[in-house]
């Protein structure tokens, strides 16, 4: 987990917790710490959001009674390579490849963190319809999630769209993205 400001107020963005949900959230947090991405698949907005950003602020016995939320948290996907490791000179351009549906359970990250506000935006389920991005800067390379596939290992690395991919994972659905193919730079392939 990376650092971030802890909100000490109860976070009821998705309503109050039902019985048993706080244990489920804490169990998911444990599994996410081990980068078990599958654990978040189809978890739903409330459980998924709190599993990533939730921080216990009040206990009732051994159970968490209330969660606050951090502004930032660790991305749920494994992170081994970042964009500097990709040999872009030999990769296809994301501007010229068709869209494909990718299983977010197979993805890896190229950055450490997620922002709470950005994930909330994509959990609202309007992005798939309206295309409204959280990021207000207009940059064609961010219009769609972009995933890199290493032709040697077939590993899939998110280059753009970590929040959209996380929202898809939590929602139990594939993420519609541009898939560029190529190789890692020789000295950095792991």
């Amino acid at each position: 987990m990376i650092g971030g400001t802890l909100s000490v107020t109860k976070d009821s963005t998705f309503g109050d917790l039902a019985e048993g949900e706080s244990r489920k959230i804490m169990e998911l947090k444990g599994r996410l710490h081990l980068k078990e991405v599958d654990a978040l698949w189809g978890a739903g907005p409330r459980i998924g959001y709190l599993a990533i950003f939730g921080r216990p602020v009040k206990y009732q016995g051994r159970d968490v009674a209330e969660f606050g939320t951090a502004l930032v948290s660790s991305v749920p996907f494994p992170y081994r390579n970042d964009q500097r490791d990709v040999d872009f000179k030999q990769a296809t351009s994301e501007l010229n490849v068709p869209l494909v549906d990718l299983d977010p359970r197979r993805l890896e990250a190229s950055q450490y963190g997620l922002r709470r506000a950005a994930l909330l935006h994509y959990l609202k389920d309007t992005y798939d319809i309206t295309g409204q991005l959280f990021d207000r800067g207009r940059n064609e390379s961010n219009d769609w999630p972009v995933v890199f596939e290493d032709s040697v290992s077939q590993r899939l690395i998110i280059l753009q769209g970590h929040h959209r991919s996380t929202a898809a994972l939590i929602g139990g659905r594939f993420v519609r993205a541009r898939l560029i193919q190529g190789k890692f730079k020789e000295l950095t392939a792991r």
Partner: protein
Amino acid sequence: MTAVTPRLWVASCHFDHQATADIDTAVELLRAGKTVVVPTLDDARDVLSRCGAPEEVVDYRISRAKSRIARNVSD
């Protein structure tokens, strides 16, 4: 074959989808979680507005789609 947004396409689409020229039907299908194909960019604009997309988002997504069509780049 052009994607305006992840689930709203114009002319055709290689994912499972439903095609309609009726704006009300398109809006209903999108809200039901379907991928929808409409005939023209003007139809797509109407659908997005009816779905509550802010005007600047509609303008942006339509202009991007228009640019890809002009460059003959298929989604």
